[in-house]
């Protein structure tokens, strides 16, 4: 998240500053894409639709960073629902839970930063695959809480549940994830 500088970045984007907008985009887009990959099978297109809807209303937005994220993820959820993809088809996350870093498997040394990035990317994809194995409502709430960084109130407004129900569902999902992670050895 951008943090304390969010206000100035948002103001810059609202004035039409492309650099500020790019900073907003790069901050939110990975979380947006990961969230959409859990709830839809066509995450890239829906993400594009989401930004196409966010841009026209950017100048009129008022709020802090969390409100901005809540607004953006609300739009994303609506766009996914509009496309009719979020309900009938489960997302397709092309991740093998046993996937390892190819360079290590081939015994080829890689630059430390490249290897680190690759490891992180693989770990992210394997974690996404784990979450995608949860029931849809649990998976969505985990993504909104963990990836989007929203509090139970905002998540409840997005998914149509009370904050208490969100909290209970999230805890249940985490317990299940813990069991799945232990079995799959995700982080090893």
């Amino acid at each position, binding site marked *: 998240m951008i943090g304390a500088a969010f206000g100035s970045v948002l103001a810059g984007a609202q004035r039409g500053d*492309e650099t500020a*907008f790019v900073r907003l985009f790069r901050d939110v887009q990975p979380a947006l*894409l*990961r969230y959409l990959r859990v709830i839809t099978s066509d995450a890239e297109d829906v993400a594009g639709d989401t930004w196409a809807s966010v841009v026209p209303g*950017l100048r*009129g937005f008022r709020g802090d960073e969390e409100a901005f994220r809540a607004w953006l993820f609300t739009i994303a959820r609506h766009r996914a629902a509009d496309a009719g993809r979020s309900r009938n088809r489960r997302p397709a996350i092309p991740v093998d839970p046993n996937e390892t870093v190819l360079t290590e498997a081939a015994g080829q040394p890689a630059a430390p930063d490249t290897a680190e990035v690759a490891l992180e990317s693989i770990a992210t994809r394997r974690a996404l695959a784990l979450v995608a194995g949860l029931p849809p409502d649990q998976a969505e709430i985990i993504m909104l809480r*963990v990836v989007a960084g929203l509090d139970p109130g905002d998540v409840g407004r997005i998914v149509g549940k009370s904050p208490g129900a969100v909290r209970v569902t*999230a805890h249940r999902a985490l317990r299940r994830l813990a069991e799945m*992670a232990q079995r799959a050895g995700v982080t090893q």
Partner: protein
Amino acid sequence: MRPPDATPNEMPGIPFPGRPGGEHDEPLLDMLFGVRVLPPDAPPEMHDLARALAALAGPADPSELAGEAAALAAFTRYASPAGLSPRSPAPGPARHRRPAGRRTVRRARLATALLGAAAMIVSIAAAYTGALPEPIQQVAHLTINAPPPAVSHPAPKQREHDQSSPAARPGSQPAPPAQPAVSASGAAAGSTTGSAPTMPGSTGHLACGPGPWQPQSLPPVLRSALPKVTCPPSATPTPTAKATAKPSPTPSPSKSALATAKATPGWSG
């Protein structure tokens, strides 16, 4: 069902307070959402879970930013002077953009209203210039005080000039009449005799000639609006002595012809 009614072993899918992994781990689970460091004595599966969640919110992969160009293009489009406007919608999470169809309907309604207003203005202008068909002109006369309709007869064979003709204007030199009929417009009559009232914009004419029509056959309202014209003895009344609202290239009568017409008995108007 309350917890005392069943043991955790009987309902393993439901977390009870006394069950391992039940509500006792909730503080730990809440800590996971903040991606905070778990205490060292936390169960190993919780540490695994914490690492998985940290990976879930890990740094961006370059492939995840592939849509940046498209988003930036959309932003640039809207950031142009015609784009990001203060009136742009969606000021908050609960607001959505207004469908484009509504704007189209609004524009169509506005265009229809403008067209209607323009048609009304044109109609009123036509009414005051006496260019409307007779029944409509009569209605306009009664409702908005437009000039009365000009009296016309079917199959007119001759047309007389109107006020737009140079001869109709005072002081101008009239051209010799091209027809044997004698006509007098309201304006011309007014300019020569000073007795015939003319309505603003009136273009009615009277022509002398053979035929059954006489001004007395008009309703009093219309008759009072017509100029008093008398036909000269030599001038044979046209069968279609009429008043018309249409402009005509026919030249106006000369002053002498009008004087002769006034001297003719039988035209009382």
